[in-house]
């Protein structure tokens, strides 16, 4: 089974990675460009990172985005976990299939439609658009991702663990807190990180439902790019890439940990 990589494999991996990461790599390199012109290389420099620190509008947008992402992740995690529990644990209640379909729909729904629908809703019920409408919209958008992750963990959960806890005198609610929650916690944490990341980089939905004083970072970047790409944009994008990459690594480590099942009974160590 242990074979070295063939030439074919090495080539496909190299091509695949180049296809995925060459544009990003170019962006990262150009963020360290000393030249004012984006497409002309003027030597290495970190001046655009320094000038970014003086860009009040960009920093303000970043701060708004982080706050929205944090609140979104918390709300989506609670709602998504509850939905996952209902889907896995409530047995066959009436409309279960419909419910699971409804929970998963936002996964495949075009964001333009989600954004438009939410905008219509907010206009109809006359909520002032801004920070909170973006947070609500992002919660709607990301909740289903949390549900998918937590549900997978719950499906692989050995119910006899909960029965054992109750058998040993632990009431149902305490069983949930002391046995169930610690065991699905990695999946919940992974869901939180994913929701945070999705909220942080959403442009389409936020564009629909945002209002005055609630310009998120992607919206700010997009509007500046329309007036021409400044090297500062490359710098902020590089920072975002760093944050997202860190988040993805954390989430996948959590998921891997969540997937680590106890060794099979009777198995040899």
């Amino acid at each position, binding site marked *: 089974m242990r074979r070295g990589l063939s030439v074919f494999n090495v080539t496909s991996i190299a091509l695949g990675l180049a296809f995925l990461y060459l544009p990003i790599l170019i962006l990262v390199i150009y963020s360290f460009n000393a030249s004012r012109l984006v497409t002309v290389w003027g030597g290495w420099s970190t001046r655009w990172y320094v000038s970014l620190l003086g860009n009040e509008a960009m920093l303000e947008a970043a701060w708004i985005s982080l706050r929205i992402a944090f609140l979104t992740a918390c709300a989506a995690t609670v709602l998504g976990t509850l939905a996952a529990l209902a889907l896995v644990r409530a047995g066959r209640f009436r409309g279960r299939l419909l419910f699971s379909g409804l929970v998963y729909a936002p996964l495949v729904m075009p964001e333009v439609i989600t954004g438009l629908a939410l905008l219509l809703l907010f206009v109809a019920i006359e909520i002032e658009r801004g920070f909170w409408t973006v947070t609500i919209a992002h919660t709607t958008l990301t909740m289903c991702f949390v549900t998918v992750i937590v549900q997978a963990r719950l499906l692989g959960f050995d119910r006899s663990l909960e*029965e054992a806890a109750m058998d040993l*005198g632990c009431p149902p609610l305490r069983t949930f807190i002391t046995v169930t929650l610690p065991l699905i916690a990695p999946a919940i944490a992974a869901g939180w990180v994913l929701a945070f990341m999705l909220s942080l980089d959403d442009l389409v939905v936020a564009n629909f439902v945002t209002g005055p004083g609630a310009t998120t970072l992607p919206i700010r970047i997009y509007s500046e790019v329309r007036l021409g790409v400044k090297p500062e944009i490359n710098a902020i994008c590089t920072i975002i890439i760093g944050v997202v990459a860190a988040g993805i690594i954390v989430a996948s480590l959590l998921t891997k940990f969540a997937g680590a099942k106890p060794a099979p009974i009777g198995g040899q160590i």
Partner: protein
Amino acid sequence: MNGRGNRPDNSARTRGPFAPWTDPDALPLVRFEAVSKHFAGVTAVDALTLDIYPGEFFALLGPSGCGKTTLLRMLAGFQTPDAGRVLLDGTDITDVAAHRRPVNMMFQSYALFPHLTVAGNVAFGLKQDGLPKDEIAARMAEMLRLLRLEGLETRKPHQLSGGQRQRVALARALVKHPRVLLLDEPLAALDKKLRGETQFELMRLKERLGLTFVIVTHDQEEAMTVANRIGVMNHGRLIQVATPSEIYEQPNSRWVADFIGDVNLIEGRIVKADAAGTTIASASVGTLRTAAVADARPGDAVAVALRPEKIRIARDMPVGDVNRVEGEVWEIGYLGDFSIYKVRLGDAFVINTAAANVTRLIERPVGIGDRVWLTWAADAGVVLTQ
């Protein structure tokens, strides 16, 4: 709270065999009263009544899907009967939640908490009772010593061997001194040798702690080894409840005889029945003599259950035995301690016989194709009417 008051009171009795089920004054510890349970139209347990006495090691034995696990789970409180009552010490516990019942269960999967250490697992139940710390520590230490788990306190379940995990699961359930310990296929995941050792360890633990054990198993050898009494179940009903030797030597039906061990079932009709014995005519073996049967009447269709090891096999025509028949050795299974001889009588009927290999001969005196005589005593066969 679950003291040791359920220790069988042997001192009051003369030192006879332990058999409270024969004592009309004995009070059962557990009583199932006409309990039924249905799952989506399938009857898992069917109006079943059963008494289990203090100090018993009771085995529920049956093929998969016979309802034995459902019965155990109703005692644990994980399932509520659709009809009937479950009593513990004379108190109706049918509607008592699982976490309030003084019974503990050892799960087939062991269900050890993977996020807790061995110590955390064993102490879990004691912590639920809010016992003081030093008492928890003392009882845990005692139980870890009893199950030879000392030094493993800080290990997580995935760092243990299969046998160690099994003992942690046992310790976790036993440390609460349950009124009844429920064992759901407790040894199914162990290899054969470890399983055999653990069976005897279970019996020793039960005696030492003076508890009552109820085990669910599909392994008849396991049930015969550990249990004082066995309840043989099929289709949600108890077919026979008796001691292991009664189940084996006096099965009450063709089904039990066939389910427990190997058996030759010889169908026939009673020709003559009196106090001296019963004569049965069969198409396959000819005329058979068996011991007297209480309610046998000539003309009844019966089956004679004959265990392979009760039949002697010889090359020369024997004298003196009541039943004998000639046949041809068709197949031989060499098991080491025993050999199984399949002997063909006439064209179709095959009788299994088992003979202990008492000599160390590599070549056995009886080989395939040999003409042999099979003989058995009148009391070797059991006459079954059901």
